[in-house]
C-alpha cells in the first residue's frame, strides 16, 4: 500500500476506560477510496476506535493518524478532513433538514446557498418536500440522509461511520450502502463500525474483526463469500477461532 494514499491509520493504539482496556494494540490502515468495515460484537472496541479518530478519547498508548498527522495534536484535522455519521444521526428537532444542513456546514466553515443545500439533500436521497419539514417528523433513514448530505458538503477525505445502517429498513440500508460506495469510489476513505455482515460484505473493500479491543482477523472483503464471512464472524464471537 502506498503510504501517501493512507488517510486513516491506527498504530499500536491502546485506549483504556478506567481499569478496562477498550482497545489493545490496534493497527489498521484505510487508504483513499477504501471502505474498511470493522465487525465485532458489543464492547469489541469498534465505536471506541471511531471515537478516538474523532478525538472524543485520547490514546493511552500508540496513536491515530489522519493523513499522517495526529488529530489530537492538530484538532482542526477532524473538522477539515473527517465526516462523521453515528448510528443515530443527531439533528436539531426544531429545525428543518435544510436548516440542520446549513448549520452543521456553517460550523465546518462551509456556507451553502439554499439551492446548493437543497441539491445536497436531494443527492443524498431526501425527497424535496421533506427539506423544509422539521426534523422531529423525520424517520431514522431520513436523518441518515441529512447526515450523509453534511458529510458530502464537507468534501471530507475520510468518513467515520458508527453502525450507520442499524435500524434502517433493507431498502434504505441498500440505498445507503450504494451512496457510501459512491463516496469511496470518488476517493474518500471510509471506516465503518457495524454489526451488519450483509452490509459489510456489500460495501466494504477490507474487513477487520475485533474482539475485546483487539483486531483478531483482517481480510480482503472481495475474497470471502457471505457464508464464509458469517462463519468467521461467529467463530470469533463463540471463541472458536
Amino acid at each position: 500500500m502506498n503510504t501517501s494514499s493512507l488517510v486513516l491509520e491506527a498504530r499500536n493504539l491502546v485506549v483504556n476506560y478506567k481499569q478496562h482496556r477498550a482497545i489493545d494494540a490496534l493497527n489498521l490502515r484505510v487508504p483513499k477510496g477504501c471502505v474498511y468495515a470493522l465487525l465485532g460484537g458489543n464492547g469489541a472496541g469498534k465505536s471506541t476506535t471511531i471515537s478516538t479518530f474523532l478525538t472524543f478519547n485520547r490514546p493511552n498508548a500508540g496513536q491515530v493518524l489522519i493523513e499522517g498527522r495526529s488529530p489530537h495534536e492538530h484538532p482542526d484535522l477532524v473538522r477539515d478532513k473527517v465526516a462523521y455519521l453515528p448510528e443515530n444521526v443527531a439533528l436539531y428537532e426544531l429545525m428543518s433538514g435544510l436548516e440542520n444542513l446549513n448549520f452543521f456546514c456553517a460550523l465546518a466553515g462551509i456556507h451553502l446557498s439554499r439551492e446548493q443545500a437543497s441539491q445536497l439533500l436531494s443527492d443524498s436521497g431526501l425527497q424535496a418536500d421533506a427539506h423544509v419539514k422539521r426534523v422531529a417528523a423525520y424517520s431514522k433513514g431520513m436523518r441518515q440522509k441529512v447526515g450523509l448530505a453534511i458529510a458530502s458538503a464537507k468534501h471530507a477525505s475520510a468518513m467515520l461511520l458508527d453502525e450507520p445502517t442499524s435500524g434502517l429498513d433493507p431498502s434504505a440500508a441498500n440505498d445507503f450502502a450504494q451512496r457510501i460506495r459512491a463516496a469511496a469510489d470518488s476517493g474518500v476513505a471510509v471506516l465503518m463500525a457495524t454489526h451488519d455482515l450483509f452490509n459489510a460484505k456489500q460495501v466494504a473493500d477490507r474487513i477487520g474483526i475485533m474482539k475485546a479491543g483487539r483486531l483478531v482477523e483482517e481480510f480482503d472483503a472481495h475474497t470471502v463469500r457471505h457464508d464464509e464471512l458469517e462463519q468467521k464472524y461467529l467463530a470469533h464471537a463463540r471463541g472458536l477461532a
Partner: protein
Amino acid sequence: MIAAIIRKEFVSTLRDGRLWILGIVLLAIFLGFFLASTHELKQMRQEKHSVGMTAKEQWNTQSVKNPHSAAHYGIYVFKPDLPSAALDPGLRPFVGQSLWLEPHKRNLTRFSPSTDQILANRFGQATTSFVLYALLPLMIVALTFNSVSQERERGTLRMLHSLGIAARSLVFGKLLGLLAAFMLVLSPALLIALLLLGQNFSLGPDDVSRLLASFLMFLIYYTIFAAVSIAASAFFRTSRVALFCLLAFWLASVFIAPRLGAVTAETLSPNPTASRFWEAIKTDIAQGLEGDGTHEQRAQAFEAQVLREYGVNRKEDLPVGFVSLNRQHNDGYSVRVHELHFDRLRDNFAVQQHLTHLASWLGPSIAIRSLSMAMAGMDLAHQRDFEDAAEEYRHYFIDLTEDWDRERSHGTERNAKGQESDWRSVKAFEYQAPKIEFALKAALLDLMVLMGWLFAALMLLTLSANRLTP
C-alpha cells in the same frame, strides 16, 4: 462559527414552546402588575400633590397669631415619586410617605403604606419588580437547564465535536442566542411599559436614563442566570441534576440570600429601638454634648452673651424679643443633636445595606434589588436626600417665623403677631429628586457585586466549556 451557533440558538429558542408558554404567562403577569403599579403611582402622586397643596393652603390661611404659634401649626411635606417607581416601589411600602415639619423637633417619616395593608400582604407582596428579579430568572432556568445536557443526551454534542467546534464558542453562542431570543420576547412588554409610563407621566431625560440603566442592569442580571444555567447544563451529566442544582441556586439567590443578608446585617450592626433613639436625643439635649454643659448652663451662658451684645443688664430691656432669640438658640442646639443622631441612624442603615452583601455569595439578587430600587429613586439614599431637603425647608420656615417673632417684640414680651400675608410669603416645599449620577454613586457597591457575579458566571461558563466532553 459563533454567529451560526447564536443564530441557531435564537431560532431554536423562539421555536421552543416553553419560551412562548412561559413568556406569555410571565409577561401577562408583568403587565398586570405594571398596570396596577402605574395606576397606584399615578394616584399616589396626585394624592400627595393635592394633600400637599391643601396642607400649604391651610398654613397660608391661618388667622392672625403669634408667628411661633403659627410655626407650631406645622407643614406636611411629601416625597414625590419618580415615574420609574412604577417598576419598583422599593422602600415605599415600609418607610413613611410624609414628613411633619414642626419647631423644636425633627421627625421621622410617617404613614407607611404597609401599616394600612391587610395582614396577608405583610407576608410578601407581588410587584412588578418581583416579576423582574424573581420570576424571569426562573424562566431563564427553565429554558436553559438542559441547553447542553440535552445535546449530550441526544448525541448532537458528538456531531458538534466531530465538526471541531470549540466548546467555548458553543456555550457562549448558546448564551448570546438565548439572550437574544429572550429579549425579543421581553421587548413588547418593555415597550408597552415605556408607552404606559409616557402616557401617564411626563418623562424627562433623567427618567429615561434611569429606565435605560435599570434595563441594562437587569440584562446583566439575566445574563448571570443564563450563564450559570448553561454552565450547570454543561457541567452535570444529566438535565435532571442540572435542573435541581439551578432551582437551588435560584431559591438561594432570590429568597434565602436577602433574608440571610438582613439577619447578618442586623446582628452585626443593630439599630437602636425607637424609644432608645428618642431617649438618647432627649438626654443629649438636656445634658449637652461633650463639653457643652447642661441645658441650664447653656441657657445662662446665652443670656449673659445676649445682654453683653446689646449692652443691657436685664432681658426686659432688650430691643428685640428675647423669648424668640432664646428659642432659636435652643432650637439650634436641638438641630445639632438631632442631626448627630439621625445621621448616625441613617449611616447605620447604609452600613446594614452594605452588610447584606455578605450573603451575596449565594446569588446576585440582593445586588439587583438594591440597584433596581436606586434607579427607581426608592432606596435609602434617595429617602435620605428627601429627608435632608425637608429638614432644610424646616429650618427655612421656622427661622422665618422666629425672625418675625424677634423683630416684632421687645424684651420678654410675647405679643408679636403675624398675618395671612406673612404665612403666604413662606415658599412651598419643592423637592427635585437627584439625578441618576447620585443613584449610581449610592449604589456603587451593588453595581460592583453585580459585575463581580457577571465575571464569576462567565468564568464558570468558560471552565465548564474547558471540561466539556461529548
